[in-house]
């Protein structure tokens, strides 16, 4: 059923802002202009209320109680898993593992699947634009296994060099893990093409979808990715919860990542039989409130629709791009044709830290530094960091005007 009808004209984004209480805060005496959405998004009232509703009404441990509360909590927990399944169009709920977030999901794959798949002399491919979360686990795996980690190069526009990639895949390649949308450049990578090439060599592909989930519709069956991880807190949900999707055949073949309660079917002093999917990977009492409220965040996004979110964010992006052009002396890092609503930049001759400090003083929240992609910023682009303004649909054109005025102020103070 297509519930995402074209309600394009009907969304009043100014009104929608009222659902985000934090946006009424003042910083340094000014109304906050929050442009650090790629780090974490703000939360709507529905999400905030759902957290306290859980603790007020149904708090109980899942999957083990015979009593009503436990049954209600379990039902809400599993309903949320089902919402997450639909959100990314996975085949079955068994393929949806609740994890702490993207980092946790990737570590699970690297430790469990990576450990059994990658051996001495093998190769793992990631890209030069990976977040540390999708770099360090593979670096560590390759060090442990005496395997080689290879990086898909990035061109000056901040796009993956796909032809180079195609010549890197060979019979030694055991795993490929790439970022769907770059957190520091905004580039949307051609992951379908990467997956197709990888699969022609029978190589499984992991996608870091942390920056994709809030901005675009994800369809794991259409993508045919083998694993995909994303975080709740970047898509209007709570922190400490995320989803790892894995194809059932892979998850079945993998040993557990952690051992303990919940993930077992039966335990004797001599032997343990592990639980079925996805519980095999959910050791210990999970983040029940987080998992349930992730479902509320999914509801929120679907109420708006990715299409409406995308259109609004592209309007904000092109508005900002034009203003940045007028300011002058700005170098944008990441000018891919296909990108999400973020601008990573430096003002020529000014350290990102100085820019960020002054903007903060004007009530404008941006991110400065490496954005957890130190090799990309430092080694590939040879910069001491960038300033990153990442937009969400609740940002306004007036806020972007303030950002532009702030940058002009920075220039006049520092140049």
């Amino acid at each position: 059923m297509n519930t995402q009808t074209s309600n394009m004209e009907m969304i009043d984004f100014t009104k929608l802002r009222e659902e985000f209480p934090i946006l009424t805060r003042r910083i340094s005496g000014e109304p906050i202009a929050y442009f650090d959405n790629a780090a974490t998004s703000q939360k709507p009232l529905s999400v905030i209320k759902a957290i306290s509703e859980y603790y007020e009404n149904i708090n109980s441990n899942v999957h083990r109680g015979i009593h009503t509360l436990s049954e209600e909590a379990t039902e809400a927990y599993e309903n949320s898993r089902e919402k997450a399944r639909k959100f990314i169009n996975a085949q079955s709920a068994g393929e949806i593992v609740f994890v702490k977030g993207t980092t946790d999901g990737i570590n699970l794959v690297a430790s469990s699947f990576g450990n059994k798949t990658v051996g001495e002399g093998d190769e793992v491919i990631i890209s030069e634009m990976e977040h540390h979360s999708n770099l360090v686990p593979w670096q560590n795996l390759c060090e442990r296994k005496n395997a080689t980690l290879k990086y898909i190069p990035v061109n000056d526009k901040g796009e993956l060099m796909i032809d180079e990639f195609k010549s890197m895949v060979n019979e030694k390649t055991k795993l490929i893990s790439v970022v769907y949308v770059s957190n520091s450049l905004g580039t949307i990578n051609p992951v379908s093409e990467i997956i197709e090439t990888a699969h022609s060599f029978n190589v499984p592909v992991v996608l870091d979808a942390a920056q994709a989930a809030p901005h675009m519709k994800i369809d794991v069956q259409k993508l045919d990715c083998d694993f995909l991880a994303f975080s709740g807190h970047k898509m209007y949900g709570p922190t400490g919860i995320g989803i790892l999707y894995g194809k059932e055949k892979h998850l079945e073949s993998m040993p557990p990542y952690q051992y303990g309660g919940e993930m077992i079917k039966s335990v004797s002093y001599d032997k343990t039989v592990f639980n079925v999917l996805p519980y095999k990977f959910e050791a210990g009492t999970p983040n029940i409130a987080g998992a349930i409220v992730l479902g509320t965040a999914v509801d929120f996004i679907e109420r708006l629709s990715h299409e409406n979110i995308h259109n609004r964010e592209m309007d904000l992006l092109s508005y900002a791009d034009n203003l940045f052009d007028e300011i002058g002396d700005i170098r944008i890092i990441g000018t891919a044709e296909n990108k999400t609503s973020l601008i990573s930049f430096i003002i020529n001759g000014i350290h990102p830290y100085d820019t960020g400090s002054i903007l903060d003083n004007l009530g404008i929240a941006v991110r400065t530094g490496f954005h957890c992609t130190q090799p990309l910023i430092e080694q590939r682009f040879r910069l001491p960091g960038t300033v990153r303004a990442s937009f969400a649909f609740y940002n306004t054109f007036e806020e972007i005007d303030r950002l532009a005025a702030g940058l002009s102020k920075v220039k006049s103070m520092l140049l």
Partner: protein
Amino acid sequence: MTETKTITQKEDQIVDDFSLFDDWMSKYEYIIELGKKLPLIDENYKNELYEVKGCQSKVWLNAEMKDGLLYYKADSDAIITKGIISLLIEVLSGNKPEEIKNAEMDFLNKIGLKEHLSPNRANGLNAMINKMKNFAIKYSGENVN
């Protein structure tokens, strides 16, 4: 030779200077001016040995003893950071290691700097102060006559 002021006297002077500004933007402008005026450090010191860890911008710091007093030199690739270092140097440089070791650095609270910096940036500030104090600890042993 200018007469030696105590650390507390120098702190009071800075607190006085900052009391002239009524908002943080003017304080920043002042800090930026200080940063631009900070004497350059020799390029030889711009390496990992002299780097202050924990700052978002790069900071290099060195100290040398002269006639029983400790003198600091520092640099950063960010101007505001340089301005803040300049304040720290103004307060601590030219004093006895013993005094530097025990300096409370209360002026940072009085001018509202610590409160104004995000925890992230306050960590960087603490890292700078620690590095400066570590030099003082290192040299205070040699200073015992």
